[in-house]
């Protein structure tokens, strides 16, 4: 029978304290995992999922939408098409700053109603300046003002995207038709990409989005407008769930003036090609070498 020595007592006390400290330190993890299913946790990166895996993931996300938001959604995985490279152009001479594009984005992409979030920021710019950093996104008066023009800014789908370079876990990448996407289930929410984007185009989900069931857009895709979880980054995807099945993006359809031109850069007969060939287009912050796929122009 062993006698309790001073050393033994210290060891037991130390071990107890250590275990308590570990339990305390690990407690947030348990809380964090509270709303995360084992399937969620073990899910592979988007690009490693087989078609069979993807089917299961889509079924799981559909069930989650039903239980969390009470809505039957049509969840698909819209993929890039062969022979398509997307490009977007915007006619600054006719944009009147009405923000209908931002509103359409808000509705189409199931954004949080409380923050009125949108992937598009319409900047009120003083005539004579092209510096988007001096644009005012928070005007609330009749538009267009005589001394201003209006420049909507969203993801520029750069061919040399800084946001992709800085992601430590490869949760964001550029797909073959030019769209930069985010795997919301792989993103760790570090916001490096938000800091790296020169166009302030990325958004962070500070909380679980609040969208009433009656307002949820049920046509959803894995990499675009499905309702994002809390704590992950999101961005404009040129509405890939629409555009990859041949439809126009929601912001373009909402534009009352027809300032927006969208199409396939590889089709010589497309509207976007006509703009690039006949208008003096420019890109934002060209000196950074990001090679945007979003072009701006003025008439004449």
């Amino acid at each position, binding site marked *: 029978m062993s006698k309790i020595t001073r050393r033994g007592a210290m060891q037991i006390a130390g071990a107890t304290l250590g275990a308590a400290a570990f339990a305390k330190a690990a407690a947030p993890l348990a809380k964090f995992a509270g709303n995360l299913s084992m399937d969620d946790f073990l899910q592979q990166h988007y*690009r490693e999922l087989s078609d069979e895996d993807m089917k299961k993931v889509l079924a799981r996300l559909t069930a989650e939408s039903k239980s969390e938001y009470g809505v039957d959604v049509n969840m698909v995985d819209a993929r890039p098409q062969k022979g398509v490279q997307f490009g977007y152009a915007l006619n600054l001479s006719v944009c009147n700053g009405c923000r209908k594009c931002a509103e359409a984005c808000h509705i189409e992409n199931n954004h949080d109603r409380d923050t009125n979030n949108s992937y598009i920021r319409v900047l009120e710019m003083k005539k004579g300046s092209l510096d988007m950093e001096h644009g005012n996104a928070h005007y609330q008066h009749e538009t267009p003002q005589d001394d201003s023009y209006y420049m909507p800014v969203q993801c520029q789908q750069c061919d040399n995207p800084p946001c992709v370079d800085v992601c430590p876990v490869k949760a964001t990448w550029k797909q073959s038709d030019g769209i930069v996407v985010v795997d919301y289930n792989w993103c760790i929410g570090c916001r490096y990409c938000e800091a790296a984007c020169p166009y302030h185009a990325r958004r962070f989900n500070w909380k679980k989005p609040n969208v009433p069931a009656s307002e949820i857009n049920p046509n959803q895709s894995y990499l675009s407008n499905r309702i994002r979880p809390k704590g992950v980054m999101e961005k404009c995807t040129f509405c890939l769930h629409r555009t990859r099945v041949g439809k126009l993006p929601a912001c373009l359809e909402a534009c009352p003036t*027809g300032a927006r031109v969208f199409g396939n850069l590889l089709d010589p007969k497309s*509207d976007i090609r006509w703009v690039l060939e*006949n208008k003096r287009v420019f890109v934002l912050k060209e000196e950074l070498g990001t090679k945007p796929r979003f072009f701006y122009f003025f008439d004449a």
Partner: protein
Amino acid sequence: MISYRIFCGATLLLLFLPLAGGCNQGAERTEPQPWIALDESDQQFEVELTRPNSSGKLTTSALETDNTPVGIACATCHGEGSNPAFANHDGAERNFHANIGLTHGTLSCGDCHSLSSPDKLHTSAGETFPLAQSQRLCSQCHGLIRKAYDHGAHGGMRGHWDLTRGPQQRNDCISCHSPHSPAYPKVMPVPGPKDRNVFKKTHSGSVIDMRFGGENHE
């Protein structure tokens, strides 16, 4: 016996493997894949023109039994035998057109409306055509805008960018621009997103506008 160091190393490796693994393992799906089998026959859908419904009649404040406004055909007053310009009439008859408010450059009625057949329009060269083809008139003066319009760089549209997959709907000129006062009106913008980094609340409850380094208090 597994040494402590190897055990720790293996545990760490197991913990971080899913994160560090990136995209190198497993069979990567080949991209691109056609989402829907592309139709090789290249069927082309139509670009449909949506235009406001015009009865070709002048509406009045009087109502029909079904509560639609009473419309008067142009020929009722401008018919055969009447003065084509209707210049000698004054009083109530002239008020029929009073609400039109023509502010379209220096144009007058007869530049677009055919006075000899008042239910039709005519070009400057004298060719007459029905009201529904009014777009032909606009292009006479606004050729560059018509060119931009024809290439999707002016005027709202809906539907498909890919005409092999579905149709597209375009607005007519007069869907947005009244031919009589064509200037697009000023609008109140819809509210923008609430950007948490732009307007910050202080503890005292005042709001600081961070756009200009927090100098401007609202």
